[in-house]
């Protein structure tokens, strides 16, 4: 069962490892990213940051979709972390099991709009989020579980 999908450009780090994993009560984390499986330094760093007692699986987006669709992840309480809205959309459009998305950290770059603390979106990313909302996915903005939950639907302007 997929408890949550988080978008965070830092992928697995303190807030994710310590706060979210415990708050969600998950037993497994999937890092879905096309760069990490081929980037030894990034991969090792993520593996070393793994919280104790939790399974950590790293796969590219396509293999992540295959794993989720095959049913091998069903027995886990799974927390999926991706680094971009685009990657989130790729997973969501293939995996109807994903019902909840958390926006945790998206870096500002040229053309982005700061919509909340630590969340900066390009117009096309706002559009993708609008699509997710239209498909009935709950999208919320929250860095750590104790923060106030902001519904993306109240902020997305498109």
């Amino acid at each position, binding site marked *: 069962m997929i408890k949550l999908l988080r978008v965070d450009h830092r992928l697995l780090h303190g807030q994710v490892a310590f706060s979210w994993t415990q708050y969600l009560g998950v037993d497994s984390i999937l890092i879905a990213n096309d760069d990490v499986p081929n980037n030894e330094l990034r991969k090792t760093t993520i593996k070393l940051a793994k919280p104790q007692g939790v399974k950590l699986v790293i796969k590219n987006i396509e293999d992540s979709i295959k794993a989720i669709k095959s049913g091998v992840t069903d027995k886990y309480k799974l927390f999926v972390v991706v680094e971009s809205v685009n990657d989130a959309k790729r997973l969501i459009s293939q995996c109807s099991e994903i019902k909840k998305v958390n926006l945790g950290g998206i870096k500002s770059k040229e053309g982005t709009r700061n919509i909340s603390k630590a969340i900066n979106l390009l117009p096309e990313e706002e559009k993708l989020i609008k699509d997710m909302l239209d498909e009935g996915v709950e999208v919320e903005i929250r860095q750590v579980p*104790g923060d106030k939950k902001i519904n993306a639907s109240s902020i997305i302007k498109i």
Partner: protein
Amino acid sequence: MRQYLLASHGSLSEGLLDSVEMILGKNHKISTISAYKKGDYDLNEQLKSVISNIDKDDELIIISDIFGGSVNNECMKLLADDRVHLISGMNLSLVIELFTLDNDKISTSDLIKKALKDSKESILYCNNIINEEIEDEEF
């Protein structure tokens, strides 16, 4: 209930709390003492006032900055009160371990022992581990 107190020479405690809150969110069970920032400062008095606010059935876990320092030495004097637990050598992973392991089912001494063990393991010379082979996990 367990209360926590971070006690340091100067502002380390406040800075550490700021970092803890960035990672774990706000926590109302923690207070801080930043000692000796003013010339007429009395640590003993400030500690007494913290203790007087702890309920009879509550416990206070004090985390001091450095063993052998005067802040820790002053806190040692409080150990006659068995509601007080004192840990020296404040650091971020220690405090995060304490908060994430803390629950009603674990005894205070087990909580502290476990947090100390886990956080000591995260003090590392990273150059020596970055080339470690860690096996990939699968579902």
